[in-house]
């Protein structure tokens, strides 16, 4: 199907495009990408916002969760893809990976927090939390993992209440007043995110190298909590608040992740480099989120309608919300 007719049919209300038309500009340098923003290099004007659809996360969620370390993230996606997915899904995964590479998104870091606003869907988010939960057990039992017994129970409690909040968000849609529930979940997730952030701060501030495995786990939990939090605010159509929250989150990522370098960890510096690259991409993606939310707000696009339209998309994994 022609790109223009596809756009007309599926998203008559919201101006979506396919990334394909931006690729030549990106290759020549006429268009530059920062996080999820595509920008005209000459005029500085924002041309569009990259946005993943529900397909992307349904394809990636399992592979991302099964990746034990940042270094194995991409290979995990490719290898898992060939073993567990149907032929159609493998084709979609391949196409998505090619698009991501063409868009010069070198790592899958942005996928951890979502390209654009997260539309992973709470089902996939919960899957990821469950997968991380499984890894926590292993990590807690590992020697020198850095978990004290008191800390273990506190951590376990925080994990289960976070999972329960994601489950509440998942079921909110069927309520009489979903917006109220979304706001409530978002408020409580802010507390959970603050807990994980506090743990990361403690890890970074402690003397000596940072315990890589624990840090990586905490960073994922922190970013996931924040993603669900913003997602809830968008579904509640609290776009201005979501924008302000996203700005705060981006500055928190910047403040913490910029203190870390490839040699900051107790792991091999190659693993450290892969981790840092993902964190940098995630921070960029977080910085670009307020721009997308501002665009939705100023164009009076209803948050829930925006996310619904993306979740309904079954073919294209990456779209561009045109700003021209």
């Amino acid at each position, binding site marked *: 199907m022609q790109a223009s007719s596809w756009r007309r049919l599926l998203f008559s209300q919201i101006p979506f495009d396919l990334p394909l038309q931006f690729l030549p500009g990106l290759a020549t340098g006429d268009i530059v990408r*920062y996080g999820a923003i595509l920008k005209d290099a000459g005029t500085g004007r924002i041309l569009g916002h990259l946005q993943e659809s529900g397909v992307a996360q349904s394809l990636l969620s399992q592979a991302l969760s099964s990746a034990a370390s940042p270094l194995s993230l991409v290979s995990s996606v490719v290898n898992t893809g060939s073993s567990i997915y149907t032929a159609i899904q493998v084709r979609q995964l391949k196409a998505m990976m090619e698009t991501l590479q063409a868009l010069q998104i070198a790592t899958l870091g942005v996928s951890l927090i979502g390209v654009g606003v997260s539309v992973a869907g709470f089902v996939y988010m919960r899957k990821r939390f469950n997968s991380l939960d499984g890894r926590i057990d292993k990590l807690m039992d590992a020697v020198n993992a850095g978990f004290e017994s008191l800390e273990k129970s506190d951590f376990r409690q925080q994990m289960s209440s976070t999972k329960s909040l994601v489950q509440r968000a998942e079921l909110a849609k069927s309520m009489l007043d979903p917006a109220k529930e979304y706001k409530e979940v978002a408020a409580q997730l802010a507390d959970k995110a603050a807990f994980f952030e506090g743990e990361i701060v403690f890890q970074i501030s402690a003397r000596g190298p940072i315990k890589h495995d624990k840090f990586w786990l905490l960073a994922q939990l922190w970013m996931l909590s924040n993603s669900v939090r913003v997602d809830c605010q968008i579904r509640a159509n609290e776009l201005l608040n979501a924008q302000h929250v996203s700005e705060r989150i981006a500055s928190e990522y910047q403040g913490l992740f910029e203190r870390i370098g490839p*040699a900051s960890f107790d792991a091999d*510096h190659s693993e450290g*480099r892969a981790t840092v690259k993902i964190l*940098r991409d995630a921070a960029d993606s977080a910085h670009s989120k307020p721009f997308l939310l*501002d665009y939705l707000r100023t164009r009076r696009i209803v948050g829930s309608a925006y996310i619904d339209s993306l979740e309904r998309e079954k073919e294209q994994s990456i779209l561009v919300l045109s700003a021209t």
Partner: protein
Amino acid sequence: MNNPPSTAADDQSKLGPFGEIWAFLNRDVRTFKWGRNKPRPATAGAHPPEFKSPTSPLKEQEPDVVSEVDARRIDGLRFRRDVLDWRDEFHFNVTEAASRAQETMVETVDHELANLNFWRLRLFTKPASEVLEVHIESCIRSRMRRTTQIEQAVLRHHLLTWPPHRQDSSSIWTMWPKLEWDTRLSLKFTADNRDRILTVLGELILGENGLADTHRQWATQYASQFLETPFVQPNSV
């Protein structure tokens, strides 16, 4: 009050008592509120009041939602990422070079120990710093110097794309702490001291405030100059 007497009042005085009662009964009740001398304004020629619909016409007049973001900020964020990428790569490459140097030194120490004769090992022992001096120069110092030169070229290239920092110095300056190396490697170069020598070498090369760490600290400080100062748009310079 200060209003001039109306012509209607003059007419009423001419009607007599019955006429006044008749006129009173025929008065519009609304005129009581606004004063008996104020007659209701004539409707002929007056424009009807404009009634506003609460839905659609209001929507047309709704003010635009004001954007709260500044697209020019993106250039600053991209610059920041560029600086961080340079810093990360510098950290990685320096650590990589230092790790390789340390591995080579382990092999060198073992090789030297294996080739020392009995007298050198037992009686006329030398400090490790003296035995390893040449190797430290060739395996560590020159290797780090080479890495530094490459990183200097990379930095120079970056500076050209970071206006207004084009003229900034790209010289990487780190001091070689000879005294510290000599002092810490003053251990006798014997087979018994092998593990201690290797531990000291590891600390000097990869440990806290060691060779790699000093280089990384330099890059962190250098990058901080850019990260802590507000980004200036190239066209506003």
